[in-house]
């Protein structure tokens, strides 16, 4: 399970807004395309997804259920 933004580079228009709003230096523009540069520092604030007008960035959530429900606790 990836816990950093997923970037569809085909959609990226190189505007760089995602890089600017990321407070942890996770993203960088390489040859005008957004890329994950430092995945370990991502706090999953999802600001990069919110500002991406091109729809190139996704920060998906896995939906889970606490185990106690399966034990009827």
């Amino acid at each position, binding site marked *: *399970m*990836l*816990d950093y933004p997923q970037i569809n580079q085909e959609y990226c228009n190189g*505007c760089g*807004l995602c890089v*600017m*709003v990321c*407070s942890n230096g996770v993203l960088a523009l390489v040859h005008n395309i957004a890329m994950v540069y430092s995945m370990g520092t991502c*706090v*999953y604030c*999802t*600001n990069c*997804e*919110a*500002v991406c*007008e091109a*729809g190139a960035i*996704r*920060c*998906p*959530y*896995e*939906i*889970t*259920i*606490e185990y106690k*429900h*399966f034990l009827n606790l």
Partner: protein
Amino acid sequence: MVDIDSLKNMPYLLGLETDELEDVMRSVFEKSAERNEIIVHEDEPAQALFFIVSGAVKVQKTSSEGKEQILGILRPGDAFNDVAVFDGKPAPASAIAMSKVTVYGLNRTDIVTLTVRHPKIAMNAIQILAASVRRYISLVEDLSFRNVTSRVAKLLLQYAPDQAQVEEAQARPRLTQQDMAGLVGTSREVVGRSLKALEEEGAIRVDRHRIAILDKDVLEEISAED
């Protein structure tokens, strides 16, 4: 330094001839803001209309209890504080830099004079303000007539794996806040607010890339609300 090429792409100034843009440019000032800096404070007197040149700005209202409602995330080319500038009343919302931001500003007195001198600015303003009204009508609809929180709760229950599926939970679809907004018919901002409300109720925990259902009964109760 104010750049005429950036100015001509600003929606308020679309269609202006070069000599008209040069006239506008004489009144434009540039301002920079660091991340999290408040560029416009809610309730401050109307001073200037701002256009974003680079970076992103969020416009938000804050309640007396400190709850925030994001009204919009603005990008280069977008303008803010226009309502206060045109009606002369205090700013209805705050504008906060989400990154290092550069904006161009036009003082209230200058924009009024320029609008009289260059009527295209007035026509652009009508279109921009009409688009804002349309956006806010949609937000009012979401907040007033729809119980989005109960629909988000229902969605989470639908997407949570049941006992038989728990082994294959990894294969289940993962949803972004934008996906959830599309599925329940609202905006990404309202989904964020609903998730926060469900967390406050103790029904879920949002943990990085995971939304964990902590109390299925509470979530079911909320999902049944009108």
